[in-house]
């Protein structure tokens, strides 16, 4: 994918904690959900950053903070050379034009009582772009671009199928010519055949309109298909980030390894021959995340005295390949993620 090397979005040490309070008049904080706990990344123009992780790992919260739909607890978000972390609602208005979002559920994210034309044109109205006639023409163009019939301008969302609704969601995001679109699980509610249509649409729009995407998904196959860079999140932190091929061909973090090995393969003989690494248990509660490395209670490479004492930093394990692990994977694929004998003492 063509990139011009400038960062469009720089996120530094983003933190979002949700306080848990008790009491009605005198509210007392009794704990906090550490949904996002120190996430940093840089995204270049024209690129796609894929964000993967299990539910509850903070992917969506992170995206909502970047969109300024949630106020970050701390950290800094620089968009197009401008610090937008603390901008007031009024100063944020012009920035909002450039940051758009496509949501997961195409049934819930379109107002059932509004016509498609209105839904797509609403952002134009808000930002006072064009006269009514111009808006209508623009919306019809957009519908055509995303592969819908422009004559369906006056229809209601319920008259469309799931895939068509997601196209409407994409047209809406595209209406004000944004620079960055955050796609939060845009295809997880769709059938595979329709999913492929939407993925191809997103890819061709990226080429035509020079778009930058943050693409959130729990489906590693989909992320591989669409992303240039991938960040793997676990319990509010990025545990590994690298260029797509590097991450999929040579994962360093055992969590990434476990995720990759759990993805079903379509070749039945390969699928049945390989050994799946089944992670035990669920993602721990982010109110009380495990000490030091947050993955240590589930990690097959856990080393007592290191992993539960010292938190690993996100650092380069290979050029451009960052991972937060004391004992990164030596090679891939591995049938057994456990540390080779004798490795423990020397590392």
């Amino acid at each position, binding site marked *: 994918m063509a990139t011009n090397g400038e960062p469009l979005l720089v996120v530094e040490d983003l933190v979002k904690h949700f306080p848990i309070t008790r009491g009605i008049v005198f509210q007392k904080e009794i704990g906090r959900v550490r949904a996002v706990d120190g996430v940093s990344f840089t995204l270049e123009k024209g690129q796609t950053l894929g964000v993967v992780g*299990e*539910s509850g790992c903070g992917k969506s919260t992170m995206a909502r903070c970047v969109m300024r739909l949630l106020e970050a607890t701390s950290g800094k978000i620089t968009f197009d050379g401008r610090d937008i972390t603390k901008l007031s609602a009024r100063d944020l208005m012009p920035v909002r034009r450039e940051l758009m979002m496509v949501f997961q559920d195409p049934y819930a994210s379109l107002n059932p009582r509004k016509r498609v034309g209105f839904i797509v044109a609403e952002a134009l109205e808000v930002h006072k772009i064009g006269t009514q006639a111009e808006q209508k023409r623009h919306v019809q163009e957009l519908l055509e671009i995303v592969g819908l019939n422009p004559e369906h301008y006056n229809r209601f969302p319920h008259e469309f*199928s*799931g*895939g*068509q609704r997601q196209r409407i969601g994409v047209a809406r995001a595209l209406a004000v010519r944004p620079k960055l679109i955050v796609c939060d699980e845009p295809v997880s509610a769709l*059938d*595979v*055949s*329709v*999913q*492929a*249509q939407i*993925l*191809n649409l997103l890819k061709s729009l990226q080429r035509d309109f020079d778009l930058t995407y943050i693409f959130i998904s*729990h*489906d*590693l*196959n*989909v992320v*591989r*298909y669409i992303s240039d860079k991938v960040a793997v999140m676990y319990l509010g932190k990025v545990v590994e980030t690298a260029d797509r091929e590097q991450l*999929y061909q040579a994962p360093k973090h055992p969590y990434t390894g*476990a*995720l*990759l*090995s*759990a*993805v*079903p*393969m*379509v*070749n*039945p*003989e*390969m*699928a*049945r*021959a390989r050994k*799946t690494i*089944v*992670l*035990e*248990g*669920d993602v721990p509660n982010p109110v009380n995340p495990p000490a030091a490395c947050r993955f240590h209670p589930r990690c097959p490479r856990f080393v007592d005295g290191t992993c539960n004492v010292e938190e690993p930093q996100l650092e380069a394990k290979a050029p451009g390949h960052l991972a937060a692990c004391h004992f990164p994977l030596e090679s891939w694929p591995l049938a057994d993620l456990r540390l080779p004998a004798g490795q423990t003492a020397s590392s």
Partner: protein
Amino acid sequence: MALLEVRDLKTHFTTDDGVVKAVDGVSFSVEKGKTLAIVGESGSGKSVTCLTVMGLNPSRGVEISGEALFNGRDLIKLHGEELRKIRGDEMSMIFQDPMTSLNPVHTIGGQLREAVLVHEKVPKQQANARALEMLKAVGIPRAETRMEDYPHQFSGGMRQRVMIAMALINNPDLLIADEPTTALDVTTQAQIISLMQRLQRDFGSAIILITHDLGVVAETADEVMVMYAGRAVERADYKGLFYEPHHPYTWGLMDSMPTLSGEDTELTPIPGTPPSLLRPPEGCKFNPRCRFVMDICRTEEPELKEVPGSPAHVERCHLDEAVKQAEIERIATERLGAVS
């Protein structure tokens, strides 16, 4: 003899707009201890097929015909009380959404106990012991204390385990799993799949797995049936289906799936959407979306016929065998990666 033998099953719903042929002449069989996967897009009739077999369709506005022989009895002819005795005992079902298929106002232990007590006259304590044993078997940690917990205190993966425990508590011969892992993360999905495989080995149940994820099928199925618009378009053992897929719809499903192992080629989606079952297209029901459509496809619906040389493999397509072989080769290299 097969455990479940379904012949020419039809489920037609009468609506104000006309008759919806949700299932239109489907035949298949499941052997003891084996897994049959039913694959297709939403609206292809996979779920309705299984609901009909379970006798869970609404009683009004529906016309059912055909046979479903299960342990020698025809399930279609059985009535309410007789079916209720079989359901949850000799055959049971796991639903897609573990969030909504447990009763939120009863404890997990109570719901498991109920599943036993409905079918057997045993003391409550004995039912309790069985419930506890099942919870342990599906890998719920601290099962003794969790028996008294309510569904909202469990995570999605844990609830799906509870559903599986409930379905298997009476040691059924047949388990129908309707998209059991679709709502779950990959890691949890891997846990649930390996759990189902282990329990199948231990209890010897047959499984009908409904899914749209070909990856899950590749990992678990013995036989596969691909459905489209209420009909089976292809049926084969898993090797036949993946290494020698014969129907353009099966190819379409494979081409639209992004994979980790395949080459980095553009995905080829199936154009359009599944047809309305109120007014299905003339001829082959897949013809409006098929890349290989010929004149005959628009007028004449192909019969389900055997693939030359493999009698267990049937498909429903007019295309010439040579064209099919070329596609099979393309898919093997592009989509499946090297065969190890």
